[in-house]
């Protein structure tokens, strides 16, 4: 299995602030990857480093095995839809397609024109007068008509209304399915990603909080509710992601690959949103301080 995106100790510093720090991950090809994290987590920085718009301060990154910015061949292999879907406001829709044809040797003219027709984009309209949803669709068309192996999208639906958001993601999934493209899609809203992604990377404060296949993440995380107890007493193969205690009850989110046998717990599955939020809180507040957390409430 080839790797779509690989980072090793990747870091990027702006002045004194690290936007991304010691980030290591390996995303397989053939997946739809959700890159999720709160605003300012480093999602844009990671994507910009991956496509060569920026250069790392530390570590290395490779995209489809190529060093970013290593030449036109490497550039031709991915499509990138930057945040807010930049287009040239004074150029017409038609001229954007012309641009794509001029600048990309593998340009798919038939796809681009069929796509704009389907989206009912007026070829003579200037991109600056398109609605946000139309602009995002135009930018997606440009990125896909490059015939990329990998499509990277930075918050593609953040600025869209709910209807446009749904339409955009639907288009995206159609295209991805019919052309077998790998996708990396960033968002600060898990709801956007839940429907489309089969692989998840949670980025918090510049580092990877958790990464993995969505189904196996869901299968290995459980919510345990039971009588109040110290999470330190759990079996060693269960790691606590989050713990909360009220009066006589303890609620935990644990990660384990083994079945949970303790009859004292009521075990329920977690949703993707619960899972992501738990990791985000953990990364924000630091790892669960188990016994002291319990001591404080006693």
């Amino acid at each position, binding site marked *: 299995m080839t790797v779509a995106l690989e980072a090793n100790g990747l870091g990027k510093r702006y002045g004194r602030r690290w936007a991304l720090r010691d980030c290591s991950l390996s995303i397989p090809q053939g997946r739809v990857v959700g890159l999720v994290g709160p605003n300012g987590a480093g999602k844009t920085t990671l994507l*910009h480093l991956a*496509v*060569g*718009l*920026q*250069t790392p301060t530390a570590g290395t990154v490779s995209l489809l095995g190529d060093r970013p*910015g290593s*030449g*036109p061949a490497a*550039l*031709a292999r*991915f*499509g*990138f839809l*930057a*945040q*807010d879907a*930049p*287009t*040239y*406001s*004074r*150029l017409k829709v038609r*001229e954007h397609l*012309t*641009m*794509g044809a*001029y*600048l*990309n*040797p*593998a340009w798919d003219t038939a796809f681009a024109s069929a796509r704009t027709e389907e989206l009912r984009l007026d070829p003579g309209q200037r991109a600056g007068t398109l609605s946000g949803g139309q602009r995002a669709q135009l*930018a997606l068309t*440009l990125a896909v008509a*490059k015939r990329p192996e990998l499509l990277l999208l930075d918050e593609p639906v953040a600025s869209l209304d709910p209807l446009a958001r749904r339409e955009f993601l639907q288009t995206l999934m159609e295209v991805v399915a019919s052309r077998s493209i790998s996708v990396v899609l960033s968002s600060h809203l898990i709801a956007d990603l839940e429907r489309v992604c089969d692989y998840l990377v949670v980025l918090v404060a510049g580092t990877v909080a958790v990464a993995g296949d969505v189904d196996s993440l869901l299968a290995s995380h459980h919510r345990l509710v039971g009588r109040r107890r110290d999470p330190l007493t759990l079996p060693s193969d269960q790691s606590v992601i989050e713990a909360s205690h009220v009066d006589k009850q303890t609620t935990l989110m644990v990660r384990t690959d083994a079945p949970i046998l303790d009859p004292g717990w009521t075990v329920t599955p977690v949703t993707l949103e619960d899972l992501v939020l738990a990791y985000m809180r953990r990364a924000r507040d630091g790892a669960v301080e188990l016994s002291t957390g319990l001591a404080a409430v006693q």
Partner: protein
Amino acid sequence: MIRFAWLQSRTQTLVTAALLTALAVTATITGVHFSNLYHSLVGHCQTGCDLATSDFLSHGHFMQRMLDLVAQVVPALFGIFWGAPLLTREFETGTYRLAWTQSVTRSRWLVTKLAVVGTATAVLAGALTLTITWWYRQFDVLDSNQYAVFERRDIAPIGYAVFAFALGTLVGALVRRTLPAMAATLVGFVFARVAVQLWVRPHLIAPLHKATSLLVGGMGFEISDGTVHVITKGAAPANSWEVSSNLATSSGLTPTTAQVSAYVHQYCPAIAVPPAAGQSVGKAPDPSAFQACQSQLARAFHLVVSYQPASRYWTFQWLETGIFVALALLAAVGCYWVVTRRTA
């Protein structure tokens, strides 16, 4: 990439070309008119040619003012409106993220853009300066010292325009915001123009020297705190560039100000009268006394004139253009370095 660079710069190029065409049409119509006037007044004159010449030169002042302004300002405008926004617009609207993720490397993208828009700049500036030089041809022959209009004729403005454009893109790459880049481009361009004019151009070729009598050319006196300064001008050959003119004694030495002043005080006391209190300019001396003093001075001193002969005009034009094209290339290399090496 060339086709895309043209697609992006097409509108601004065509609009500028249309404006310049309007100017060229105006210049052609008035130019033909003045050409006819020249031929009827000066072309066939047998006697009284001075009168005919001054009659001819009394025409066309409005067009001259306009063309002088255009020739002076337009090269800077290429820097401000073409150069500065070339990259800042991409940064401000975020479209650099679109442009740099197509299947064209950033360096090729930049070089092509610079080449396409730079060529358009050179072509349009060339058309402009050609028009202006053509319009002025008869006025220049009759009136001006060619060095006096050096910056507004022939090929020098092409160099200025190309430099302004390249400087604008470099500043844009560094500053990344349009308005500050425009302002900085204007400041940088004016500075470069003035610097070359004052500190570089006079030293490009060693001037020729010529000794002449003090009775040739213009002369004046300036009195401050009782010291009399002798001012001389216009003793260089016609149509040449007078770099300096200094008094010299018969033995070839340059006299000190005090020596000259003492001489004037001694031999022409009528001249050395300081202005009445409260006045900056003294009473004009009696013409005969002035002439007497001039002849008196001419006995003791002569003039040494340093000048660039008329024949070097084109050498200077090429050097000036070359310097600014070289500066433009330097700015382009700097811009390339900033865009390709510096982190976006």
